[in-house]
């Protein structure tokens, strides 16, 4: 009849909170009470844990068991607490040395047979535990690779509850069974690996658009591609990740954490070092894009594309609410989902790429031949992309259909992704040097006021921009965006400051006029 204490982690968004798990065994009829705001999956833990303990050849105490999860006010969900609760009960019933599980973080689901099962969110959980000074963590074997990504964590990977119990009694450190072969990729289109089979050189006849994609990759600018079907919009967007530089260690940890919480991380995949590419279908709901859900708050496509590319193909077909929900993360770089009990934050700093047909029948091009849509229909179709959203798109490209002759001609001039990626990496280097000591990494992230104060273009370079503003072609926000793109163009060509040429290019890209 005693009290035992151990630890686990509750996740709110991608932030982990250390939870103290206490088990008290008292005189009384056998029953188990779980207190501390558990959700349904966690309440079911009672029955799971009991079966797991009995099937691990341990004794289930025949008395009144009270399990408390504190802080009690924080809502807890999921099955990651199973192992911590089971160990606390075993320790309280003195089947394990009473103080042995103290100061260790347990994070795994239990099978009825006592096996440890992997759970989503191990990476942020281990980060939270080590930040609170608990360096020893026990996870399921399948999660071990993910947990070991945290540098100063001592990871104990176990196959079953009996192994953990033996270890806590002073036995050997558990040796997990060999992991099963890798399952296939999750079917959500967030895999960064498929980019490897693609190359920018495959997009023929769209040299302007290729250049625009390169500028966007360098400075992290949002892009919209407008053009008839078959012109190469989707091809271009899908090849944007192939020219992006790999993720820095801190960013990689952030991205991997988000994918860990979402459960889209393949076991054994390790740290995600390539920028993610996320292409949700146009029937996606608002919760699927920005994140949400009742009870369990999951990151949406915007967060899964953090530090990578969010590609909305057939953008006008998306619900208007869904598109407009992206405005706030585009501005703030994070999604805040507020619920009555808590507020979850997911980072969402992505490069937005929109692709759209010029009209519903998709036949309209500069010539206008074969298109039956009236100008009003066309306007209405593109009008579904709201002004405020388009105002946040820095680079707008109109693609023209490519003729056979152009394709043959262009074949001699296309550059491979590797060549372009090198130029992009060079531009990023300029950027990093210039932005050293500021919280920003990319041209697109610099706030307007700071841009005007610290990073002005060459004197006289803004004359054409001033004229465009006087004509009402460019808003004040648009002017800032143009200067940012001009900086990226300058970075790509190795100039120390953008001149009037770079500003002109940026204005043309902003207005989206075909040249």
């Amino acid at each position, binding site marked *: 009849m005693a009290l035992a204490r151990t630890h686990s982690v509750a996740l709110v968004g991608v932030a982990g909170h250390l939870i103290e798990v206490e088990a008290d065994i008292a005189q009384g009829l*056998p029953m188990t009470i779980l207190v501390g705001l558990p959700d349904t999956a966690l309440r079911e833990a009672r029955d799971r844990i009991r079966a797991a303990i009995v099937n691990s050849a341990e004794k289930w105490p*025949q008395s009144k068991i009270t399990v408390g999860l504190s802080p009690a006010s924080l809502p807890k969900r999921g099955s990651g607490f199973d192992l911590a609760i089971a160990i606390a009960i075993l320790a309280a019933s003195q089947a394990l040395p009473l103080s042995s599980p103290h100061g260790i973080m347990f994070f795994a689901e239990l099978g009825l047979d006592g096996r440890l099962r992997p759970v989503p969110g191990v990476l942020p959980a281990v980060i939270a535990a080590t930040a609170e000074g608990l360096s020893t963590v026990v996870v399921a074997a399948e999660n071990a690779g993910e947990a070991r990504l945290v540098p100063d964590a001592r990871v104990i990977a176990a196959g079953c509850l009996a192994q953990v119990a033996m270890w806590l009694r002073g036995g050997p450190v558990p040796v997990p069974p060999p992991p099963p072969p890798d399952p296939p990729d999750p079917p959500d289109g967030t895999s960064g690996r498929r980019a490897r089979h693609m190359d920018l050189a495959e997009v023929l006849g769209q040299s302007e658009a290729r250049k625009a994609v390169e500028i966007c990759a360098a400075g992290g600018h949002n892009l919209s591609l407008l053009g008839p079907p078959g012109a190469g919009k989707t091809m271009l967007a899908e090849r944007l990740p192939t020219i992006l530089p790999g993720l820095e260690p801190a960013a990689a940890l952030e991205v991997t954490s988000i994918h860990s919480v979402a459960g889209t991380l393949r076991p054994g995949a390790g740290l995600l070092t390539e920028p993610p590419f996320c292409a949700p279908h146009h029937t996606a709901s608002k919760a699927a894009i920005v994140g949400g859900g009742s009870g369990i708050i999951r990151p949406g496509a915007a967060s899964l594309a953090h530090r990578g590319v969010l590609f909305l193909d057939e953008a006008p077909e998306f619900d208007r609410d869904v598109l407009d929900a992206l405005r706030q993360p585009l501005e703030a770089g994070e999604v805040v989902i507020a619920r009555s009990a808590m507020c979850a934050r997911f980072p969402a700093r992505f490069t937005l790429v929109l692709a759209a047909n010029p009209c519903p029948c998709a036949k309209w091009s500069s010539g206008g031949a074969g298109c039956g849509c009236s100008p009003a229909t066309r306007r209405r179709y593109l009008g579904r992309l709201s002004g405020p959203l388009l105002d946040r798109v820095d680079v707008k490209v109109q693609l023209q259909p490519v003729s056979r002759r152009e394709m043959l001609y262009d074949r001699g001039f296309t550059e491979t992704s590797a060549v372009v990626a090198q130029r992009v990496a060079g531009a990023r280097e300029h950027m990093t040097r210039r932005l050293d000591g500021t919280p920003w990494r990319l041209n697109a992230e610099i706030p307007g006021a700071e841009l005007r104060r610290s990073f002005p273009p060459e004197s006289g370079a803004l004359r054409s921009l001033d004229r465009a503003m006087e004509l009402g072609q460019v808003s004040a926000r648009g002017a800032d965006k143009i200067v940012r793109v001009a900086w990226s163009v300058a970075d790509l060509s190795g100039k120390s400051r953008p001149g009037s040429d770079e500003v002109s290019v940026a204005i043309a890209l902003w207005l989206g006029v075909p040249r």
Partner: protein
Amino acid sequence: MHAKDVLGRDGEQAAVKYLESCGFRILDRNWRCADGEIDIVAVERHTFVVCEVKTRSGTRYGTPLEAVGTAKRRRLRRLAVCWLNAHGIRFDQIRIDVLGLLHEGTGGFTIEHVRGVG
């Protein structure tokens, strides 16, 4: 008589012996009314105690103590009041105890006694 009833009767007999050895005074056994049955009615010092006896031959269908659920505890409390009313006696303290008896191979019982359950 079925084997399970024999087991139950033997168990109750063992429980009575155990309670007497603990200093309980047995007032009544197998008292029935419209609401149900009380296995043992006893007094420990100045406390009126209603005892439920559960006897099992093994734990294949759960331990004897687990077999006493919330509904059963609530009924025992009601029955305690029924007994007191029927006999016109008043006590300041009323308690419900559960005795779980597990039949051993040798013929004896292991007894688990949980006091004050309801």
